[in-house]
């Protein structure tokens, strides 16, 4: 059980690092597009 939890914990830590960077970069362009859309609507 300890091995399973170790795998889950480190897998989640790596996934979180990866997704944080992705969301940080692409979320910003999402905000820009959303505000442009609202401005033009």
């Amino acid at each position, binding site marked *: *059980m*300890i091995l*399973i*939890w*170790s795998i*889950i*914990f480190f897998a*989640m*830590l790596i*996934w*979180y*690092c990866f*997704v*944080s960077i*992705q*969301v*940080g970069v*692409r*979320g*910003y*362009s*999402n*905000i820009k*597009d*959303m*505000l442009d*859309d*609202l*401005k033009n*609507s």
Partner: protein
Amino acid sequence: MHNPSFITLTNFSPLLDGGILIIYLAGTILAGLMVRRYVKNVDDYLVAGRKVDVYLGIASLAATEFGIVTCMANAELGYKYGFAGTSPGVALFAAMLIVGWTGFCIKPLRDKGVITIPEFFESRFGKEVRWASGLVIVLGGLLNMGVFLRMGGDFLTIVFGLPDGYLEIMMTAILLIVALYTILGGMLSVLVTDYLQFIVLSLGLLLTCMLILWQIGWEPIIANLSEAQGERAFNPFHDGTYGTDRIILDIFLAFATILTWQTMITRILAAKDTKTGQKIYRSTAPFFLVRFILPAFLGITALYYFAQHGGAPDREILALPTFLAVAIPTGMLGILIAGMLAADMSTNSSYMLAWSSVIYNDLLAPIHKNKWSEKKGLRINRILVALIGIFLLIYGLWYPLKGDLWVYLQVTGTIYLSSMSVILIAACYWNKANNWGAIGAIFFGATIPITYLILQQVESTQAFAENIGPYKSAILAYIVTALAMVAGSWLKTSINPQKSTL
């Protein structure tokens, strides 16, 4: 109350850590206020004009559902039950993935283009069901959110090293900052600040976990947990410490939350289309495991730290802030507190907006009948957010929390989660469902958890409430609610077959 002798023990530096906090707060307030000029009507204010794309949706959903209260509650679960305490996270992860893949309930809901779930119910069950649904959503939601401020205040006073008397000042300060940009910019401000808060929160949480792994290492922490709690720390089914009834409730609650929790479903309703909404759910699902596993790891590390150095607090819920205040070095503590503050602010702002949207859209519907001007609608929405803020401040100050924080959140959430999830499933997939069944479901879904909360508070019935336990009473609420939906619908069809379609 935490141990006053412990108060002064903190690595918080007003200059370095305080400076980091001021930069974060100024940035957030500025961003939140800047976007308010894009708000032209009630739709922009409540669902950001339905223009949310995948990555912003993920940031917003993740930041909203991770607050100080979640972090403290989940760290408490880790501190008390080890990794077995992360069972609700496993259930939420699975439920979100299944719902995101299949579009179960959320597809018909988003396709309908509504602002709230009660609005969706009206087309199937009539105005009375919409109103009653709005009432239980607001009641359950506000009781649930009522403890957020106190927990946030508790956390901050301990890590700042302030005496107990500063709790109320801390609570008021958090609320005022959040209310300022939420009242003015609505969902747009919430989304933009959520994005910033997601980044700061992730940075704080990831750096703290990595620092702990680097300084202490994984093996000593796990060895201490294994020695202190044995097999039960890793297996929720072992010797019944965590309990089968609690696991069953975790599963019920996970599906009900994913389908009907207003702050979560708002991201689906604000998504630019149904496919984007489903993708937001699928992509955010692993975060719901992270949201349990990382705080639980911090709680497990606190257990290790106190075993080595002593100084454990009287209340387990305070284990996390007490540990962080003394174990995290200056500078890093500022980033972590900014992260926690970010988590708390994004949660409070989204929750205030979510409940005000239900009050305006559903409870006040018989009064405004969608005839108010956009300007008047916006003004009323802003007043509602402010009133919810005042309620939170008052309720947060006097409600004495008993038992696990997570259990309180589960019981109060059940007030509406049980009935709303049953009615939503019936509305989407059961042709014979009608308003009698829906009213029965709302009545029993709210009565059982409220009765339990009252029994828990009254001295003469406390022992009785303890015998039943929070898990069995909440499971009972889900089962009885489903039966009431079926029985009520069947009864109406039997008595008056002509009118059974509503």
